[in-house]
């Protein structure tokens, strides 16, 4: 038999951990809402039946107001999984059960996983699972996902439910509301729902949604004005009785039902009210005066380790491995086997050199993501967003924009994706545009090359100034865009602060290895292809003759055409123009292209000799303008694709790319021309 089980639950309930335990796959484990918004699927291992597990986004309710909620609800209603596994954080049971009431109402068989039971027991609290089962009318299994406990039992239960409901069809929905409301729901169900043009699959749920005034449901059901008037009578009646608006009445009723059930089933050891350990940590971490210095110290520490001595050590190490050991060995083989010179050139300089320029960063990027994973899994990330909210609000952004921007220093692709946590579309667009100005890890080799050639004495400071330049441009852009094309109110900042947890080694390594794998995959596909194409375009002319002077090659000819565009910025030679163009493939390629075009890339030749060659065509001022342009201009193709997907609009994608390139040109122009006026060279 084939079955489909979907996982639903609040953010931070342990859903990702559970998903990984069940499917045994190695996925990205996140701690802030939104990470699981991608549709993740897996198969239940250890089961002979074919069970597909779908991980739905973490949500607090099924009212369709955020992207995640709509995705989850549409999936459940349209795809009809056989069983919904609702995961609940047992340490926060009351709030988590709110979603459960809504999930049960959908009319699809539900099994509840009462997760984090280990934490409940550690606190000395008791939960009477049988009593809860009775109150909610669904099977409930206690689990501890991070210890792998209860998961088999949970799946067996779900399987049992799936098998039996295939026979009985549907479950009798539990009634959560008081008499008056139930009476209205019943009447709507019996009189109005049958008259709808679109046949309702779940009459009770449809009746409830109509009463609640759910916009999405009304849209889907194609409700006529007449029906709306009939519903209005019920709504007005109830609103008068309860002296509140309809949505609040329903929500209140659900919470009342939950409180009542909980009061009987849950015995807390402590009365609550006193400050928890997390609260005490928060008193320091979000302290009025200490918060910002603490935050800066954390960031500085991460940057020191990632981009400082340890990070550069890994770069040198991989550099030697690829460009000397591997390139040398392969070159030896090719010579022995008598390969044609062009083939030797393609493999050693084109492919190994080109891919190597990207692969050297894999360890560094993994280190950065290791730290980001610690920030997320420990719970500090959401505090940092809270602390930064006040500052970012001045730029028209919310604290939630902070996470994408921070990730932007690693790689724009996951950074852009993490902007999904912003509810408001304009906030999301603005955040994506500004995130791109955060200098991504792939641009670092470009800076590294130029500073070693032109700013040998103040390398760290010059690179730092480039990072700051990106932030300054982002600040100005934020203010300008918010006042023009992206006008509108910034969404309020409301975020759950999960309790601090010590990150598990398993969770962190999954994060880190996943990232590393992504990059290696990218190197193996896009960069590989690019390396071959670039090599070809600079080795052959338009008449497909192999050329001695790259200036006559396809790339050289093309570069000479676009070079005048860059002339006012100080680097109007065709080699720089071509290098920047190839940066669209991936930013590291800029260095690789410069290497290839300046006739390097031979075994044993390293960055030092390329730097020396560059000194003949650049000056320090030109070099700085070039770095600034590299920092700001359009993103690489992977980021471009992600922008398109996330903004879901060609217009905005092209605007973003155009805006970036325009800003890059202007800033580089100001640096070069302004610098010359001031007498720099």
């Amino acid at each position, binding site marked *: 038999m084939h079955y489909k089980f979907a996982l639903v639950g609040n953010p931070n309930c342990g859903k990702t951990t559970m998903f990984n335990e069940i499917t045994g796959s190695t996925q990205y484990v996140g701690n802030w809402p939104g990470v699981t918004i991608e549709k993740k699927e897996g198969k239940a291992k250890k089961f002979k039946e074919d069970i597909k597990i779908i991980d739905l986004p973490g949500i607090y309710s099924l009212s369709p107001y955020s992207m995640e909620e709509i995705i989850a609800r549409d999936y459940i209603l349209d795809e009809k999984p056989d069983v919904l596994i609702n995961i609940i954080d047992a340490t926060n049971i009351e709030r988590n059960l709110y979603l459960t009431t809504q999930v049960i109402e959908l009319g699809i068989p539900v099994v509840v996983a009462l997760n984090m039971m280990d934490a409940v027991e550690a606190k000395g609290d008791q939960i009477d699972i049988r009593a809860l089962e009775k109150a909610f009318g669904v099977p409930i299994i206690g689990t501890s996902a991070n210890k792998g406990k209860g998961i088999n039992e949970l799946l067996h239960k779900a399987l049992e439910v799936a098998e039996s409901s295939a026979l009985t069809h549907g479950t009798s929905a539990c009634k959560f509301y008081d008499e008056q409301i139930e009476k209205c729901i019943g009447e709507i169900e019996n009189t109005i729902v049958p008259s709808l043009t679109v046949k309702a699959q779940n009459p009770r749920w449809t009746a409830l949604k109509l009463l609640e005034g759910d916009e999405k449901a009304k849209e889907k059901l194609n409700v006529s004005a007449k029906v709306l008037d009939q519903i209005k009578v019920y709504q007005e009646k109830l609103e008068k009785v309860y002296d509140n608006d309809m949505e609040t009445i329903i929500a209140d009723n659900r919470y009342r039902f939950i409180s009542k059930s909980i009061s009987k089933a849950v015995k807390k050891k402590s009365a609550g009210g006193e400050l928890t350990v997390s609260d005490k940590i928060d008193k320091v971490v979000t302290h009025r005066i200490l918060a910002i210095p603490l935050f800066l110290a954390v960031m500085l520490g991460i940057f020191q380790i990632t981009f400082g001595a340890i990070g550069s050590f890994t770069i040198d190490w991989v550099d030697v491995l690829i460009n000397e050991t591997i390139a040398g060995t392969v070159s030896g083989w090719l010579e022995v086997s008598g390969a044609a010179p062009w083939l030797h050139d393609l493999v050693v300089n084109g492919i190994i050199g080109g891919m190597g320029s990207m692969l050297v960063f894999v360890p560094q990027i993994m280190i950065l993501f290791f730290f980001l994973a610690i920030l997320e899994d420990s719970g500090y990330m959401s505090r940092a967003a809270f602390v930064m909210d006040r500052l970012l609000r001045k730029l028209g952004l919310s604290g939630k924009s902070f996470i994408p921007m921070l990730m932007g220093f690693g790689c724009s692709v996951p950074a852009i994706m993490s902007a999904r946590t912003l509810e408001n579309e304009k906030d999301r667009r603005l955040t994506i545009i500004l995130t791109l100005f955060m200098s991504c890890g792939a641009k670092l080799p470009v800076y590294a090359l130029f500073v070693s050639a032109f700013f040998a004495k103040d390398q760290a400071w010059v690179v730092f100034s480039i990072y700051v330049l990106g932030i300054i441009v982002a600040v100005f852009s934020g203010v300008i865009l918010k006042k023009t094309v992206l006008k509108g109110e910034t969404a309020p900042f409301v975020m759950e602060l999960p*309790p601090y947890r010590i990150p598990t080694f398993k969770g962190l390594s999954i994060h880190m290895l996943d990232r590393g794998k992504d990059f290696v995959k990218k190197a193996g596909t896009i960069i590989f292809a690019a390396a071959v194409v670039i090599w070809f375009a600079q080795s052959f002319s338009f008449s497909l003759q192999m050329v001695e002077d790259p200036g006559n090659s396809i790339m050289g000819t093309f570069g000479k055409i676009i070079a005048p565009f860059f002339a006012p910025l100080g680097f109007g030679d065709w080699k720089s123009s071509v290098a920047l163009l190839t940066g669209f493939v991936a930013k590291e390629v800029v260095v690789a292209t410069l290497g290839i075009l300046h006739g390097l890339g031979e075994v044993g030749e390293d960055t030092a000799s390329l730097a020396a060659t560059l000194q003949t065509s650049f000056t320090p001022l030109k070099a700085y303008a070039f770095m600034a342009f590299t920092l700001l201009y359009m993103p690489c193709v992977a980021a471009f694709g992600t922008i398109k997907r996330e903004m879901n609009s060609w217009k905005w994608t092209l605007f973003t790319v155009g805006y970036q390139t325009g800003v890059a040109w202007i800033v580089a122009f100001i640096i070069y021309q302004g610098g010359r006026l001031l007498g720099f060279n």
Partner: protein
Amino acid sequence: MPLTMLTPGKEAIINVCKAKDSTKKFLEGLGIIPGVSISVISEMSGNLIVSVKGSRLALNKGVAGQLLVQMC
């Protein structure tokens, strides 16, 4: 009075939520609805960390000001 005026450590009951619909719905999912007790854990230049139904929520000054509470 608005939630922003509640002294940290004190508990109050939420009376009215004046936020716009989408925010209000989101807050409902997080347990912030009229009749529920809320307390302020800490304050940072107007932005608050509050405790509602045992969970901790961060609210910026703007939303906090839209929640009217009553001392109990």
